[in-house]
Each structure stands twice: as structure tokens, then as C-alpha cells.
């Protein structure tokens, strides 16, 4: 029973994610107007045929900005995810495989990093480096790898204790071969599930920091930036906040559905 229910969740999630992906990919063809084109004469207009979702305080097409915002958000989410895993996979792999002092040293460093609230720490780093998207990416990677490295280490530890690792050593394989061919290959699936569960969180964090002015900088079309731009008009034009809010909500929902679904499937597969 639960398998079917999960299946629906995963399917809905995949449809949402795919839709966002296509929108991001084909943004220039889908957007009705230039998202950066300022027309003060058209500011704060209600939805019309030429501006399906109306215009913002600078007369820019809201729908176009949302569509291009999808591109910004997905791109940076993927970039953050990639850089976080580029650090956490090798670190977790080495800590779990080497064990002993190397493991101890790495784990204590991770403990220190995890002792800080991660969002606050990346906020501080971005503020220090100067607010911009590349710096945001850097600060996320510098802070968030710790938690993932810890999880990856535990996956590696589990695999490392299997007899086939001993067998690989006995058959003369080198540490590198064992780490890649045996451990990483078997850890790939749980790592992928971990990644898919966390995409939503990262997306939300990027929008959050952009809203605070530490991520994407105006006039770049990005959901968090749109929210903060529209904040002064919360009372008079609440729809301007609603659109990016809904876009973020649905995107996070989609990614979470996919991640949860994959995790459930994995749990079922392990139980079976």
C-alpha cells in the first residue's frame, strides 16, 4: 500500500522538478518580456494580456522575472550541491576508510563546524566576503560540507566492515582502487538519496540569503530578490510577494517529494 502512495508522491515530485527544469532551460522562449526592462510608466500594473502577472515597482514583467528566477535558483542550487559534495564525498570517504587519527582529526573539525548554526555561519562568511552569488556559493560549500561528510563517513564505515573489502585487500588492490571501485560505488546510491533530500533545503537557503541581500543582487531576477524588492509594497500589492513565495514553495515541495520518495524506496529495498 505505502509503495503505491509513495509512488504517487515521487511522480508528482518528478513532474514538478521536471517542469521547473524545462522552464529554466527554455526561459528565453517562455518569458513574455525582458525581465530587466524597466518601464516606470507601467509600474505596479495589474495582470493584463501583455503582463500576465502584472508588473513590479519598476514596471518589470513579474512573470518573466519569475521564469528567469527559476534559472538562477536551480543553477545556484546545483552549484551549491555540487561544491558541497565535491568536498564532503572525498572527506567522508577518507575519514571512514582511513580511520584512526585521520578520522579523529577530521571528525573533530566537523564537530567544530557543526557546533555553529550553519545558516548563521554562512551568513557571516558571505557578509565578510561581500554579498554576491559566488561568495554565497563559497560560504555554503565551506559550511555545509561538514554535515554531509559526517553522513557519508557513516555510510563508508558500514561498507568498509564488509568482508569484500578484506577480500579486495587480500587480492592486492590498492587503497585508491578499494575506495573508488568498492566503497564509492556502493555508497553512490545512499549519497544520491541524501543529495535529493537536501536540494529543497539548499534552494530555500539560497532564496533566504538573497532575500536578506547576501545572495543574488538586484536587478538579477531571483525569487529571494523579488521578495525583498516587493517588501515595501506588502500592504498595497501583496500579490507581488505571493508569486515568488508560491514559486519557492512548489519548487521545495517538488524536490522534497522526490527526495522523500527515493528515501522510502531505499528503506523498502533494504527491508526486503
Amino acid at each position: 500500500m505505502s509503495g503505491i502512495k509513495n509512488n504517487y508522491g515521487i511522480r508528482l515530485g518528478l513532474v514538478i522538478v521536471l517542469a521547473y527544469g524545462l522552464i529554466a532551460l527554455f526561459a528565453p522562449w517562455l518569458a513574455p518580456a525582458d525581465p530587466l526592462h524597466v518601464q516606470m510608466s507601467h509600474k505596479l500594473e495589474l495582470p493584463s494580456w501583455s503582463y500576465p502577472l502584472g508588473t513590479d515597482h519598476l514596471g518589470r514583467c513579474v512573470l518573466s522575472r519569475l521564469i528567469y528566477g527559476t534559472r538562477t535558483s536551480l543553477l545556484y542550487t546545483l552549484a551549491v550541491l555540487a561544491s558541497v559534495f565535491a568536498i564532503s564525498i572525498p572527506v567522508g570517504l577518507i575519514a571512514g576508510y582511513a580511520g584512526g587519527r585521520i578520522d579523529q582529526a577530521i571528525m573533530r573539525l566537523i564537530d567544530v563546524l557543526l557546533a555553529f548554526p550553519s545558516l548563521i555561519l554562512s551568513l557571516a562568511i558571505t557578509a565578510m566576503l561581500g554579498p554576491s552569488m559566488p561568495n554565497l556559493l563559497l560560504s555554503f560549500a565551506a559550511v555545509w560540507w561538514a554535515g554531509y561528510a559526517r553522513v557519508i563517513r557513516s555510510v563508508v564505515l558500514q561498507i568498509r566492515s564488509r568482508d569484500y573489502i578484506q577480500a579486495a585487500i587480500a587480492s592486492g588492490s590498492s587503497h585508491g582502487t578499494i575506495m573508488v571501485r568498492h566503497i564509492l560505488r556502493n555508497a553512490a546510491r545512499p549519497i544520491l538519496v541524501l543529495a535529493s533530500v537536501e536540494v529543497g533545503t539548499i534552494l530555500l537557503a539560497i532564496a533566504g540569503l538573497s532575500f536578506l541581500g547576501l545572495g543574488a543582487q538586484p536587478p538579477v531576477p531571483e525569487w529571494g530578490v523579488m521578495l525583498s524588492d516587493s517588501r515595501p509594497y506588502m500592504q498595497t500589492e501583496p500579490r507581488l510577494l505571493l508569486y515568488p513565495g508560491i514559486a519557492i514553495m512548489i519548487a521545495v515541495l517538488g524536490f522534497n517529494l522526490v527526495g522523500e520518495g527515493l528515501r522510502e524506496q531505499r528503506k523498502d529495498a533494504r527491508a526486503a
Partner: protein
Amino acid sequence: MKVLEAIGLSKVYNPRHSWLGRSGREPGLTAIDGVSLSIAPGENAALIGESGSGKSTLARLLLGLEKPTFGRVRYRGIDYTDLRMKDMRGIRSKLQMVFQNSYAAFNPMFTVAQIIDEPLRNYDCDSVEMRTQRIREVLEQVGLAASTAHKYPHELSGGQLQRVGIGRALALRPELIVCDEPFSSLDVTIRKQMVTLLQELKDQLGLSYLFISHDLSLVQRFCDSVTVLQRGRIAERYSSVHLLKHSSHPYTRQLLAAVPIQHPAQRKTPLQVQSNHY
């Protein structure tokens, strides 16, 4: 010259010096305590003892999968105790192992061909064709169909998997194979097939075996010498398994008493089992 020689091997887990750890004052766990043994070419040595007596740890020490805390291990007089992973490769090819739990002993992502290929690709600079040839040869030696090569471990039965395990050990043409409880998960008929297979391979290839087991009936049928391990130490040693039944050592008597008899008429007066360990 002895194929394998161990002198005063000891293994202590969690010794005191641990960096930033909760080392405290715990003395550590002594798994193996001053064990010496040697195996001659063509010998079928047996290592028996109950669970937790340190048999598997000893096997790992002998194969250099773990470093002993004290003591030396030698292959044909060459000391490989302190060799690094890379320098050890020459010796590893001569000493191979068949693992206890056949399901955990194979990477689930590998096919049988890849499993047997792994040791080959580490040693032979030979071409892919030659390795494929060798894989086919090995599969035939252990009595598996050539079609097995493309199957994954989860598609095979326990007996077939154990054959793959033996095949992987054979691939490098070793001189000694350590079998760690190789048949404990198999049923009696397959166990018998396996013993026959190992005997045939030995006759063909002149192998030596170190059998780790608590199945004394198997040991008595198949092995030449026997070493009894109790709580990490050697309790007794016999150059012939037939002497085992005359043992007066209380621990050996207990192990012998645990062997199932084949017919109630063979039952002797029940032996007093003392729980003097633990």
C-alpha cells in the same frame, strides 16, 4: 621450507595510546596472545576453537590483512610483518583466503567475472583476453558453468557463491588458501561436495590449506594437523588429527563432545561440561 610461519603473534585491540580518544585506562582486548604455528607445503592444517576464540583474527593476521601487535609472520622465510600495502602484493598472491559469509564476501555491484578478475588485474599485466581466459579456467576448476560469469552474487545460491569464493582465491595460483569457516552456511550435501572439490584442487595444484572451523567432524576427515585455539592462545596441537580423540585437554574434550554423533548407539556417557571459561 614452511609455506607459512607465525612466531609469537599477538593482537591487542584498543591499546591505550589513542589520540584525543576515550582511551582511559582500559587495558584493551587481547584477541590473540602469543600464537606460533607453521604450515608445510601440501599440508592441510586445521585451526579449531569455539566462537570468539580468535580464529578469524588469527586468519587476518596471517594474511597480513591486519598488523599484529607483537610477533612475526613469514612466507617461505620472508618476513612480511611490517611490509606496506604496496610491498606486500607479491606475497598476497601466494596467500589467499576464502571467507566465511559468502554473501558479504562479494561486492554486490560486481559480476562473478569482475570478482574473479579483481585479483588478476592487480597482478597480471596480461591482456584482457588472457584474463578472460583465466576466469573461464578458474570457473571450470571450481565447477561453475561459464554462463555464471555474467551473474551477480544475489543471483547465485550459497553453494555457488562459495565456489566463486574459492575461484577468486585460486585465480592467482596461490600456495596456501586460508578457509575461514568456509562451509558453515551450507547444508550437508553441499558441504560434502565442497570438501571433495577442495581435495581435488589440492591434488591438482599442490595447495596447502589452513582450515578454520568448529566443525570437528569435517576437520577429522579432511585435515592432517590440528591446532586448538582457546581464548587467543594455543591450547593444544597435534600433528595428526587422529590423535585428537585421545586428547586429555579439558577444552578439547569439550569441543569433541560437541560433535554430533551419527547414531544414538554411538552415544557415550554424557560428558561433564564445565563452564570454566567466561
